[in-house]
């Protein structure tokens, strides 16, 4: 009984993982379309940001699939780089310059 | 553990770091670089002497033994070329202060210069295919820095092409290494050679395929026939001292890699790779390179185009894959490195003296600068291979090899192209140095003389290679027998 339950759990996890991967992939593709088409630069910025969020999700799923905790740092890392990238794009759209000479 | 083999790589690396601390104190940096370079030259000479007397020196990086760690192998061929590199580099460091402007020198010239030497020595010495790629990258990084030094418009345009071509070939290089690794499970060259032998005969087609792919990568770097289009323009734009370093060292790394790989690893199908592919490409390389040299009036471009037929000659020796052929190739490689550097130095001096690069506007330079004129004439006949100079000995060995294997077309093309090399170079001498004394020559006699002296040093070595062939040839013969019998290299690396 115990064995069967574990087996069932593993199979279900696999199915769920595959579904998640496929969904995220489709989502990234749609976001890519938005990135290329995006009527305004703000749309593009949001789309790129969301692609990053999806990447974090995919990394997490890979960590689950490989049964490892080594990828946790990677998720954090992507998040940080994404944050800085988004701020840079936002500043560029808002002010036209990313690092100012003097910001009072 | 013997660390000697790695010294030619890390000493310039350390020097490049030291001079990077004080880029703007030019007086100190110049003197320091010159002193360091002379000391390094002596050290490398000592290592070469040791290798010739005690055999191959192998350093296993990090203390990991051969197939797992990175081997640095100072064998007869590689240490000879490293020594030649250091000789040229020493001449270049004395030439540089007079040729470059202060601004250019301050912009980390000496750092890039030492990095280039480090990368070149590393590429010569490494016994590991992936490590070879790494050292290619090191020297390419340094060369990217050097080629844009001066920030001219033409330089930026040509450097973009140069970077793109090299990025593409580097990418292909890594891919090829991945193929090799997936096939034989190792990247150590001696180990690959051992494993390739064990592959059954009917599967060796894939090895040949990978070999040709690797040859393509090296052919881009070495500027062999269909792939030399990027070379002339990108080598012409930088300062003469940088052109000299590039022309004498960078393409030779490519041809050395072909040498190493095709005498050590891919020797199972010489009938196809060596005797057909290499011989035909050598024929075309010799012909087209020299045609390029005849087609232009820019003196610097003429010398740059002359790099290409020299590569053809060396490739021809590898293609022959006989004792004479390989000995001729090694000899010619050494000779060409030295004499090309000397000619680039002299051309730099000529351009300063005449104030123009255009041959049709130049005349009578010899009346003001007789030393420069006669040195250039000497360089020309050394390059073209007039006996008893060094070009002649190399070509003699190569042609003897070609004739004994009955490659008549190859022989004819080789002779024809040496004649055309002579024509292209003597054209500079006749039209630039002879004739009416031209207007607009420089008054800065001291600068021209300062630019001539390093070339005298190199030409003296070149003449020693030719006149003293009696002393040089036994070493070259040792190298060629050593290359044909791979067991010494393999056993030195794997069991050392």
């Amino acid at each position, binding site marked *: 009984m115990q064995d069967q339950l574990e087996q069932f759990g593993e199979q279900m996890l696999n199915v769920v993982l595959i579904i998640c991967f496929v969904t995220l992939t489709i989502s990234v593709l749609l976001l890519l379309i938005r990135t290329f088409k995006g009527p305004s630069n703000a749309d593009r910025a949001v789309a790129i940001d969301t692609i990053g969020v999806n990447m974090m999700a995919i990394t997490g799923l890979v960590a689950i699939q490989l049964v490892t905790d080594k990828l946790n740092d990677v998720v954090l890392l992507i998040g940080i780089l994404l944050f800085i990238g988004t701020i840079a794009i936002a500043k560029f759209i808002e002010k036209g310059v990313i690092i100012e000479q003097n910001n009072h | 553990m013997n660390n000697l083999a790695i010294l030619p790589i890390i000493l310039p690396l350390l020097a490049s770091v030291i001079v990077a601390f004080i880029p703007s104190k030019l007086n100190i940096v110049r003197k320091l670089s010159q002193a360091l370079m002379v000391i390094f030259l002596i050290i490398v000479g000592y290592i070469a002497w040791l290798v010739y007397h005690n055999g191959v020196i192998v350093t296993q990086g990090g203390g990991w033994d051969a197939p797992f760690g990175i081997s640095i192998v100072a064998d007869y061929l590689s240490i000879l070329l490293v020594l030649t590199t250091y000789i040229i580099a020493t001449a270049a460091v004395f030439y540089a202060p007079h040729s470059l402007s202060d601004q250019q020198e301050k912009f980390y010239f000496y750092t890039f210069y030492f990095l280039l030497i480090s990368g070149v020595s590393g590429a010569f010495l490494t016994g590991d295919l992936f490590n070879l790629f790494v050292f290619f990258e090191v020297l390419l990084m340094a060369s990217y820095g050097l080629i844009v030094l001066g*920030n001219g418009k033409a330089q930026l345009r040509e450097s973009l092409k140069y970077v793109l071509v090299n990025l593409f070939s580097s990418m292909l290089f890594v891919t090829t290494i991945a193929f090799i690794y997936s096939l034989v499970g190792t990247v150590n060259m001696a180990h690959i050679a051992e494993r390739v032998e064990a592959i059954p005969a009917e599967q060796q087609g894939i090895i040949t395929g990978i070999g040709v792919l690797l040859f393509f990568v090296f052919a881009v770097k070495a500027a062999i026939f269909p792939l030399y289009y990027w070379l002339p323009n990108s080598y012409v734009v930088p300062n003469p001292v940088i052109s000299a370093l590039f022309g004498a060292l960078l393409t030779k790394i490519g041809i050395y890699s072909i040498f190493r790989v095709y005498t050590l690893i891919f020797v199972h199908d010489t009938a196809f790779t060596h005797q057909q592919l290499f011989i035909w490409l050598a024929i075309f390389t010799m012909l087209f390179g020299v045609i390029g040299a005849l087609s232009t009036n820019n003196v610097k471009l003429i010398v740059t185009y002359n790099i290409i037929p020299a590569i053809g000659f060396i490739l021809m020796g590898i293609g022959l894959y006989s004792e004479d052929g390989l000995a001729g190739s090694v000899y010619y490689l050494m000779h060409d490195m030295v004499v090309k550097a000397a000619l680039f130095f002299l051309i730099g001096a000529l351009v300063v003296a005449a104030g123009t690069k255009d041959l049709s506007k130049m005349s009578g330079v010899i009346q003001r600068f007789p030393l420069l004129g006669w040195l250039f004439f000497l360089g020309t006949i050394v390059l073209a291979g007039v006996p008893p100079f060094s070009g002649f000995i190399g070509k003699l060995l190569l042609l003897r090899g070609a004739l004994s294997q009955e490659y008549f077309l190859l022989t004819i093309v080789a002779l024809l192209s040496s004649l055309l090399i002579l024509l292209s170079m003597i054209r500079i001498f006749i039209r630039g140095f002879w004739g009416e004394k031209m207007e607009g020559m420089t008054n800065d006699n001291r600068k021209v003389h300062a630019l001539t002296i390093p070339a005298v040093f190199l030409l003296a070595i070149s003449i020693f290679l030719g006149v003293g062939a009696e002393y040089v040839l036994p070493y070259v013969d040792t190298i060629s027998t050593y290359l044909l019998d791979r067991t010494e290299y393999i056993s030195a690396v794997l069991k050392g």
Partner: protein
Amino acid sequence: MKQSNDLILRTTTQIIAFMLLGFSVYLFFAGHNAPGGGFIGGLMTSAAIILMYMTYGFEKIEKIIPINFRTLTVTGLLIAVLAGMGSMLFGASFLSHADGYYHLPLIGEKHLATALIFDLGVYLVVVGITLTIILSIATDSEDESNQNVGV
């Protein structure tokens, strides 16, 4: 340029920059036998510094961090090369490293390796190079001294 209100950015930067610096130190020390190391640690540090540059502007940060990043790069290179050469003093081959377990006060038993010194060099090189590249792209004003290097 018009005065703009970036209160949110400033407030978050105050917290996040220190989190980033802490994370970079963690990554740097984790590099021994887990993902991390000098390279990624250096990238994180430069990310934190660039975040501060974006928030507070060029002049202020230059006053706060008065480091010439080119010199930092060179120092890192020197440390890395010397760390490799150090083993040659003990007769071992180039780049050999030693390690061992030591009992340190306050933090207990730790695994120490000389590879850390090499990693420190890498860390400094990465910080120096990244910031040099990004700052020279971001601040291309006309009066730059390297602009007119004669041909």
